[in-house]
């Protein structure tokens, strides 16, 4: 089942904390930030079903991308072999 990176926003920090507890949302620690317009926002990884549940519970969500797909895309950008092996060669 695909999982998505989403951004949850709410004016209340307490509401966002509650969603993390009650819906067992996996948040990304680097994606938490105060937002001067929206209040607070957190990035999280949830399933399509999870997105439905959160929306039904009234949370404002923006869906950003399918994490498995972007992960596979990025893995194709990892170097093959070893560019530093002899003959000594700098990148």
């Amino acid at each position: 089942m695909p999982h998505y990176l989403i951004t949850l926003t709410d004016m209340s920090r307490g509401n966002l904390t509650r969603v993390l507890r009650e819906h067992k949302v996996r948040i990304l620690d680097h994606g938490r930030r105060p937002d001067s317009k929206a209040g607070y926002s957190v990035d999280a990884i949830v399933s399509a079903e999870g997105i439905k549940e959160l929306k039904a519970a009234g949370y404002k969500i923006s869906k950003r991308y399918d994490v498995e797909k972007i992960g596979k895309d990025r893995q194709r950008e990892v170097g093959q072999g070893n560019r530093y092996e002899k003959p000594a060669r700098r990148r």
Partner: protein
Amino acid sequence: MPYLNVDEVESALSAAAAAPFSDFVQLITLPHLTWEGRTCHAVRIGTNEQEDRPGLYLLGGVHANEWGSSDILVHFIEQIEQAYVNETGITIGPLTFAPSDIRTIVDTLEILVFPQVNPDGRNFSMKHDAEWRKNRRTQPPNSPSTPGVDINRNFDFLWDFPLHFNADVYVDSSTIPSQPTYRGPSPFSEPESQNVKWILDNFQSIEFFVDLHNYGEAILHSWGDDEGQTTNPQMSFLNQQFDGARGIEGDDNYKEFIAANDLSSSRNLANRVRDAIRTVGGRDYDIYSAFRFAPTSGTSDDYCYSRHIVDNNGKKIISQVIEWGRDPWPTYRQMKKIIKEVTAGLLTLCLRMSTS
């Protein structure tokens, strides 16, 4: 040009410490093998012309899925050593570091760079599950089906979060081995965090620490467990009286003490780094304390800064986290821009340390 893979980072460090750079770059072999048997390396940059030089410790690759931190630090090492040997200086976009700046940095600082703390996890992330952030521990209380400890929850700073924090607070650490932020069975249970500590214990010069992470475009300063305050030293992570009170935003029951001059110097240096990043990349990194939205427990930056408070004889280490990039998993094309801007920030930090 793609991301450096795990073997390439290690090879890059060996090349960085070989001729013609070996007079001022030394390879450091870390003593603790990873769970999959890998040997980790760091490098020390600095000529031996001056005793008692200030030390800067740069860390990357703690979280396995934040690949670019290792690339940034390898690039940083290569830029410095090429410029020093060739006496060329470094130009990054509109920012120029003169040959004399590079000479000052190498001749007066001791720079420790540990770019790939968690090679097992980084390898797994690059080859199998790109989201993977932990190490690859499978020993109990983990298992082959639930492997991994989050290295940046395994440091000895308020590690036992259910004891130290308010029970109603969401602390981004976990006691459950299958969870992405599992803290491990005890502080410093993991070879990766032990290696980070080994450098701190063996290089007494270190007075500034930067841990690179992705993402958020932010520079974070102490503390991460609660909001800071500069007036009451008794309100401290060492004081058990406050167990159960920590981590609540906006209350007066607990705020972590930080000396006013430490806060000021940390923010001043962060401002310099932010300005350099903005000049080179046009990106406006935020500066705030590591406590944001939710408190953290067992992180490298809080541990480093806490060492001089736990041990009065220990050297004070001002500690920061740079959260590079706007998003997780940038394309390498995006990463190249980030590498340049963060390198400019780190060089600015070095120059500021070497001239203050």
